[in-house]
C-alpha cells in the first residue's frame, strides 16, 4: 500500500500519458505524422549521434589527460572542465548565436583588425550539436574522471611491462574498463539533449520536445502532444535499456578498483604545452568564451535590465529553488527512511522509481501533471459549488503547487542518490547500537543519523537548487502567470530578439551555479 502511494506520487505523469494514449490521437496527428514526424525523428537521432560522439571525445580525452599527466595549469583546468555544467545549454546556445552573428563579437573583432572573415552559421543542427556538446560534455568528463582516478595502477603497469605503448594501454585496457561509467555519463547527456527545448527552439531545429510545445500551444492539441511525449519517453527508456544491457554484458569489470591507483606522468617539453592546449579547448569553449560573451552583453544592457523588476524575478527564482530543494531533499529522505524503517522488500524497485523523473523530459512531466491536476481542480470547483455554493478558482493548476510538485518529480533522483549514498555509508550498526541502548528510533534519527547524513543532505540540496535555477521547459508550461524565473526571463528576452538583454539573468543563474558547485566541492572534500 505504502509502496503503491510512493509509486503513484512519482509515476503520475507517466501514468497520465499512458492512460491518455487510450483516448486516441487528436485531429492534427495525421498532419504531424505526414509533415513533421520525419523531421522530429531525423533531427532527434542526428542530435543523439552527434552529441554522443562529440561529448565522448571531449569528455573522455580531457578526463584522461588531467588524470594521467602533469602539465601546466592542470589543477585549474581540472576545475574549469566541470563548470560548463553551471551554464544551462540554452544560455550557451544564446552566447554562441551572438558570437557568430552577422554583427556578432567575432565579426566585430575581425573588422577591428581589418580582416575579412566569412560568417559561420551556427543556427542549424550541426551548430546545435556543437553547442549542446560543449555544454554537456562534463557529464562524461566527471563520470570518466571518477573511474580513471581509481583505475588500478598494476593493470596499467602490467600492460607497459608486456610491451604495450601508452596509447595501446589506454585503448585496450583503460577505456574498456571505464566503459560502464562513460556510457552512464553519455546516457545523462542524451537525456539532457532530448529534454532540451530552449536551445533547439532558438536554433530553429525541430525535435520531439519542440514538437510537444508546438502541438500543445501552437496547434492547441494536447492529444497530439501526449502521443509525441509517449514516443519520446519510449525512446529514452530504450536508451536506458541499452545502457543496462551493456552494463550487464560487461559485469566482469566490477571490482576492478584498486587501492594502488594510477600515478601521473610529468610531461616535458613540447608535449606539456600541447596537452595543456588540447585540454583547454573544451574548458575555453564550454565555459570561458560563453561567459565572456555574456559579461560583454551584460555591460551593454546593464542599465536597461538591472532594475527593480530584475530584483523581483531573481528573488522569486531563488525562493522557488530554495523551497523546492528543501522539499525535494525532505521527500527523498522520507522515502529512504520509510523504506529502511519498514524494512520494505521493494527497496530496489522504489529507488528505481525515484529515478524515473530525471529520465523523463521536463515538457512531458509538465503535461503529465497538468492533465490530472486540471481534472482535480475542475472536480473541486464543481464539488464546492454544488455542495456549499462557493465559487472557487483553480487551486492546484496554474499555481506554484503544481510547479513545485513537478520539480520534485523531476529532480527527486538528484536528491535521492547522495542521501542514499550517505545512508549506506553509515550502515545499520550505529542506529542498531543506539536502539539497543534504549533510544527510540526517532531520537536515534535526530541524534545519530541526521548529523552523519549532513553531507548527503547538503549535496542533495545544492544539486536540486542548481537544477531548479536552470530548468526551462517544465517551468515554461507550469509556472503561474504572475510568477517569473530568471531562466524563463532569459528565454523570453532571447525569443523577443533581445538576446543581449538575456545576459544578466543568465549570468545570475551561472554565478549561483558556480558558487554552489564550489561549496559542494568543499563539502565533499571535508
Amino acid at each position, binding site marked *: 500500500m505504502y509502496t503503491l502511494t510512493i509509486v503513484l506520487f512519482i509515476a503520475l505523469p507517466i501514468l497520465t500519458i499512458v492512460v491518455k494514449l487510450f483516448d486516441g490521437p487528436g485531429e492534427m496527428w495525421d498532419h504531424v505524422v505526414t509533415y513533421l514526424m520525419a523531421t522530429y525523428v531525423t533531427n532527434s537521432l542526428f542530435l543523439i549521434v552527434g552529441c554522443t560522439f562529440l561529448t565522448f571525445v571531449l569528455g573522455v580525452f580531457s578526463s584522461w589527460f588531467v588524470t594521467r599527466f602533469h602539465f601546466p595549469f592542470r589543477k585549474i583546468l581540472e576545475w574549469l572542465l566541470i563548470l560548463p555544467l553551471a551554464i544551462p545549454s540554452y544560455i550557451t546556445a544564446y552566447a554562441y548565436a551572438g558570437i557568430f552573428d552577422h554583427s556578432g563579437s567575432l565579426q566585430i573583432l575581425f573588422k577591428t583588425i581589418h580582416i575579412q572573415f566569412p560568417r559561420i552559421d551556427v543556427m542549424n543542427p550541426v551548430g546545435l550539436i556543437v553547442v549542446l556538446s560543449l555544454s554537456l560534455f562534463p557529464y562524461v568528463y566527471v563520470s570518466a574522471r571518477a573511474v580513471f582516478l581509481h583505475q*588500478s595502477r*598494476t*593493470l596499467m*603497469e*602490467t*600492460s*607497459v*611491462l*608486456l*610491451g*604495450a605503448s601508452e596509447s595501446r594501454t589506454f585503448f*585496450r*585496457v583503460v577505456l*574498456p*574498463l571505464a566503459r560502464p561509467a562513460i556510457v552512464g555519463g553519455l546516457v545523462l547527456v542524451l537525456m539532457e539533449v532530448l529534454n532540451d527545448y530552449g536551445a533547439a527552439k532558438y536554433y530553429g531545429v525541430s525535435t520531439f520536445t519542440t514538437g510537444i510545445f508546438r502541438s500543445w500551444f501552437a496547434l492547441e492539441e494536447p492529444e497530439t502532444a501526449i502521443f509525441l511525449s509517449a514516443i519520446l519517453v519510449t525512446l529514452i527508456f530504450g536508451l536506458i535499456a541499452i545502457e543496462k544491457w551493456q552494463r550487464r554484458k*560487461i559485469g*566482469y*569489470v566490477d*571490482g*576492478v578498483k*584498486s587501492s594502488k591507483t594510477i600515478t601521473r606522468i610529468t610531461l616535458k617539453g613540447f608535449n606539456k604545452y600541447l596537452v595543456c592546449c588540447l585540454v583547454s579547448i573544451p574548458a575555453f569553449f564550454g565555459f570561458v568564451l560563453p561567459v565572456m560573451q555574456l559579461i560583454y552583453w551584460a555591460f551593454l544592457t546593464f542599465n536597461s535590465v538591472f532594475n527593480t523588476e530584475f530584483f523581483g524575478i531573481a528573488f522569486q527564482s531563488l525562493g522557488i529553488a530554495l523551497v523546492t530543494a528543501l522539499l525535494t531533499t525532505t521527500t527523498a529522505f522520507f522515502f529512504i527512511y520509510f523504506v529502511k524503517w519498514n524494512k520494505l522488500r521493494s527497496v530496489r524497485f522504489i529507488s528505481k522509481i525515484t529515478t524515473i523523473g530525471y529520465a523523463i523530459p521536463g515538457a512531458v512531466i509538465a503535461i503529465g501533471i497538468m492533465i490530472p491536476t486540471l481534472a482535480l481542480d475542475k472536480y473541486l470547483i464543481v464539488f464546492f459549488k454544488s455542495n456549499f455554493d462557493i465559487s472557487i478558482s483553480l487551486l492546484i493548476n496554474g499555481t506554484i503547487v503544481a510547479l513545485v510538485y513537478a520539480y520534485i518529480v523531476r529532480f527527486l533522483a538528484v536528491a535521492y542518490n547522495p542521501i542514499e549514498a550517505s545512508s549506506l555509508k553509515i550502515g545499520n550498526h550505529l542506529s542498531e547500537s543506539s536502539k539497543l541502548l534504549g533510544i527510540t528510533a526517532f531520537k536515534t534519527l535526530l541524534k545519530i543519523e541526521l548529523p552523519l547524513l549532513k553531507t548527503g543532505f547538503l549535496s542533495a540540496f545544492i544539486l536540486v537548487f542548481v537544477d531548479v535555477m536552470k530548468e526551462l521547459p517544465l517551468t515554461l508550461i507550469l509556472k503561474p502567470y504572475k510568477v517569473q524565473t530568471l531562466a524563463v526571463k532569459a528565454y523570453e528576452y532571447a525569443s523577443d530578439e533581445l538576446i543581449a538583454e538575456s545576459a544578466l539573468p543568465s549570468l545570475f543563474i551561472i554565478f549561483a551555479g558556480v558558487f554552489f558547485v564550489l561549496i559542494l566541492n568543499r563539502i565533499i572534500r571535508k
Partner: protein
Amino acid sequence: MDILTLNNVTKSFDNGKNFALKEISFSLEEGKICAIVGESGSGKTTLLRLISGLETLDYGSIAIKDTVVSSTSVMRTSLDRNVGMVFQDYALFPHLTVSQNIGYGIKKEVEDKVKEMLQLVDLVGYENRYPSQLSGGEQQRIALARTLAASPKLLLLDEPFSSLDASLRSQLRSEVHAIVKKAGITAIFITHDTIDAIAIADEVIILKEGRLLQKGTIEELNSNPTDSYVTSVFSELKISASTILKALR
C-alpha cells in the same frame, strides 16, 4: 654468468626525506631463483619496481646482462629491459579472456604461444574464460603464463602467495617452483614469509628498513647469520630450515 647486478642502489621518497632503499648491492646468477625477504616497509616492492623500470633510482646503478639499464644518467624503458613481472593481485585484465590475456604482450605466432603457455601452467581448455571465472590459484598461473609468454630474461614476482589461503599456498609454491624451473628462467620474488623463501628459492636476500642485511643460500643464512635480525627470521620457525626444505621439496 650474472644476469642482474645492483650497485649501491639508493631510493628515497618525499624529496629525500624517507629512504626506501640504501646502498643495495648484489648480483644474481642466471637460472637461479632468488627470494627477497623482509617485513612491510623494508623496501622489497620498491626494489622490484626499480629493477623492472617502473621507478627511477636516486643513486647507484642496475645492470641486466652487463648492460646498465638504470643509473642517475640512464633509464631504459621496461620494454628494453625484457623483464616480466607478476603483481601481488595478478593484474589480469578483467575484460579479456584467458587467451587474450596471455597473448596481450606477444606479437608473432600468438595462438601457438598461448597454447604452449597453457600447457606449461596446465590450464588447457581455459582459453575462453574470463579472470572472474577462475579460482585464485588459476588466476595466478594465468598471470605467470602471460608474463612468461613474452619470453623475459628475468621474472619478478611481487608477493606471489600472499593472497592465497594456507592449503592453496603450499600447493602453488611447488607449482610455481616447477613452472619457473621448467621455463628455465631467472626469477626474483619478494615475500614476508620465510617458508616461501625456503620452499622455492636457491638464494635469499634479507632486507630490513631499506638495507640489505645478508645474501646467501638458505643453509648459509641459517647456519651463519651475520645479523641478529637474520637469526630471528629463522629462529621463529622453531625447526631447522633444512628440515623444512626436505619436507617441501
